């Protein structure tokens, strides 16, 4: 080889020679170094593997729990109590979130002045008043009540230590006094205290399963682990059978008559006769459920359901149905009305203190003759009469879903059978008591062909798809009269409105069956001058769908009778019902405009 000797080589030549592999670079301890590097790298790899195994196997459960604690959370609950809707989807009761702010000064990281300044603008309070509050304690100082969601968000965005926001639910009643008697109210612990809120507490209390979601570092929700079901799957609503429009109209009509006659209280009930669903139930006076603490506690019970009254003449059609059903009389039986009668030593008069001579059963109803009714019911034995009264439910509750229902008062059987005066007074609707709701139920039985339905206002719990998830377990309808009997009674009641005391309730173009009632109120054992007037109607007469009952308590004035006080209320309510339900006139010829008479 013609290469120069190594000591004289220049560095460049040496490198060149190495590249050309003439003189491979001799590394001293090459093998040892290689081994060392290999060991270091291998050791590192082994260490990594060990750490990996440790993390994935031994520490896995702990790490998983820790990760879940950091990432998993629940979506905020959408409501605390299910909302209550009327038949057409208007909200009658709804939950709104409200927030409370508490301060814990011992946890403040910044100066109290800074925190007070930041809060002052959001809470609309002065900085000084907040500073004063901060000084009152070390922890748990309430600063703000009833904060809205926007304000709570702003305070959360401040990220200040020592401030705590708690979420509460407040029940809102958009319809206020209009439906307070039915819906009721809840107290500060969200427990229902009256009305549907109380009686359906178990249905209304939402028990939604909290939905788990994963959140990232900023608190935003991640799409992994998001629940597959729709978010509103648990948004159930309690639907009522109530129609707010009719309720409003009923309340307005009641107000009008009550203020005209300065009555103490009143109620209007409109019920569907076939299933007992209440379309309207207005009781006056009412209260504002959002300010229930300002109302008198006596108002929390709906008096249409929990107070008793002696029905008076409105009970006469029921008695006639009983007598017809028992075969004691015929529709064309005639009785003599002398105007006065003495039963067991007690005098019985007609309301107008005059006799009407020979009257058919229809005539007795038209004139609302007490004496006539006594004669009618005397055709029946007292014992079967008592048994029938018991059978139709006098002295028992109707089984409605509204709370605080009172069973009527009824004499003992022995007393009823022994003393003829009891049957005589029962003949014209005095001597026993019922609730207005029970009265409506009994007249619905006359109207629907003889079945006693259970009045109710709750339809059921519905899911967002419109499917009923839970209904009510009500008493099944039972038969108390035959179809034939009720048809006869309905005809008689139609005549009362056409020709008798029910004329103020006539609606042109339509036919309805009705009965007025003017009863004296019993006060500490004796009948006083105070009256309770009522009017009941079944509409339309040809094929009834609804029964309407108006009861006005203690109207003042000489002209305060069922026909003058209560009948116009029912007429007004039925006129609205015609328009709302689109019930066509049965006698359209009565509606034709009269031809103009030229002067």
């Amino acid at each position, binding site marked *: 080889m013609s290469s120069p000797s190594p000591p004289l080589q220049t560095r460049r030549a040496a490198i060149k020679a190495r590249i*050309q592999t003439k003189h491979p670079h001799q590394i001293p301890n090459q093998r040892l170094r290689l081994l060392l590097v290999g060991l270091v790298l291998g050791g590192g790899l082994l260490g990594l593997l060990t750490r990996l195994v440790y993390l994935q196997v031994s520490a896995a459960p702990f790490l998983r729990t820790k990760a879940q604690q950091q990432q998993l959370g629940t979506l905020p609950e959408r409501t605390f109590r299910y909302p209550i809707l009327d038949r057409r989807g208007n*909200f009658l009761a709804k939950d709104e979130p409200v927030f409370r702010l508490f301060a814990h000064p011992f946890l403040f990281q910044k100066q109290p002045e800074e925190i007070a300044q930041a809060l002052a603008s959001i809470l609309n309070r002065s900085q000084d008043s907040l500073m004063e509050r901060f000084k009152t304690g070390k922890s748990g100082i309430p600063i703000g009540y009833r904060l809205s*969601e926007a304000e709570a968000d702003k305070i959360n965005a401040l990220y200040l230590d020592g401030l705590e926001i708690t979420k509460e639910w407040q029940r809102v009643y958009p*319809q206020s006094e209009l439906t307070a008697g039915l819906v009721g109210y809840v107290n500060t612990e969200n427990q229902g205290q009256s009305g549907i809120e109380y009686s359906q507490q178990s249905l209304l209390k939402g028990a939604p399963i909290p939905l788990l979601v994963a959140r990232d570092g900023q608190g935003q929700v*991640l799409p992994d682990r998001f629940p597959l079901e729709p978010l509103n799957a648990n948004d159930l609503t309690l639907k009522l059978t109530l129609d707010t429009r009719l309720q409003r109209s009923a309340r*307005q009509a009641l107000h009008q008559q009550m203020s005209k006659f300065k009555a103490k209280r009143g109620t209007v009930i409109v019920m569907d006769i076939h299933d007992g669903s209440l379309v309207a139930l207005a009781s006056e006076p009412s209260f504002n459920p959002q300010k229930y603490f300002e109302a008198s506690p006596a108002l929390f019970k709906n008096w249409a359901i929990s107070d008793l009254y002696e029905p008076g003449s409105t009970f006469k059609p029921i008695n006639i149905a009983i007598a017809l059903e028992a075969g004691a009389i015929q529709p064309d039986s005639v009785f003599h009305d002398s105007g006065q009668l003495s039963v067991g030593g007690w005098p019985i008069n007609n309301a107008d203190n005059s006799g009407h001579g020979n009257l058919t059963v229809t005539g007795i109803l038209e004139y609302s003759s007490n004496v006539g009714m006594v004669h009618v019911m005397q055709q029946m034995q007292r014992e079967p009469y008592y048994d029938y009264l018991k059978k139709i439910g006098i002295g028992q509750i109707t089984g409605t879903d509204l709370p605080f229902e009172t069973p009527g008062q009824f004499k003992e059987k022995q007393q009823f059978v022994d003393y003829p005066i009891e049957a005589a007074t029962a003949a014209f609707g005095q001597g026993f008591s019922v609730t207005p709701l029970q009265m409506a139920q009994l007249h619905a039985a006359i109207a629907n062909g003889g079945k006693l339905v259970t009045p109710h206002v709750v339809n059921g719990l519905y899911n967002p798809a419109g499917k009923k998830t839970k209904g009510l377990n009500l008493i099944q309808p039972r038969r108390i009269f035959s179809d034939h009997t009720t048809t006869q009674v309905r005809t008689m009641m139609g005549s009362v409105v056409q020709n008798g005391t029910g004329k103020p309730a006539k609606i042109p173009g339509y036919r309805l069956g009705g009965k007025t009632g003017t009863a004296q109120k019993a006060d500490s054992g004796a009948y006083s001058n105070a009256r309770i007037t009522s009017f009941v109607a079944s509409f339309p007469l040809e094929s009834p769908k609804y029964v309407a009952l108006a009861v006005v308590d203690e109207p003042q004035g000489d002209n305060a009778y069922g026909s003058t006080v209560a009948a116009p209320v029912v007429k007004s309510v039925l006129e609205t019902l015609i328009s709302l339900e689109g019930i066509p006139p049965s006698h359209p010829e009565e509606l034709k405009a009269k031809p103009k008479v030229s002067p």
Partner: protein
Amino acid sequence: MAVASRSKVIPVLPKTTAPSARSQSKRTRKHLPHPEKQLGQLDPRSPQFPNWLIVLMAFRKLSTPVVLFLVMGVLPLYAWRVSTQKSWGNQFTALEQLQRDERTWLTRMEERKYEISENLESNPAGFVPKSSKTTIFFQPAPARPAKPASPPQADVTPTDIAPIGY
């Protein structure tokens, strides 16, 4: 390392350096052995590299660009994943805000309905409540007898029909 080729003939650098041969004068070149004879040639049947190494090197030729592509693609993919998550999260926050607005709006609407109705009682302002007096019922017309469908007139030319609109 030399790049593997399909043939197993791999040129090997000769023991004598060709440039140094060139640097020498021409006259000494005559005394050198012939370059071609110096070029060694391997026997194709005895490859220098083992089979598996060649396969591995072929695989590496294929996989290197693939891996490069994958690595370069991972980052944008991950960025896309995070951005979809974030946009989903933003949409969900917007949904929650909408739900909150809907709830507030519903409550306000119901309260407004009540206010309007209450005001109407005291101040009708020309509104009339619904009653039978303001409702019209009319009898539906009797059903017309079905007319047989007339065949389309074939003799109607388009020019016969004058446009109405002009």
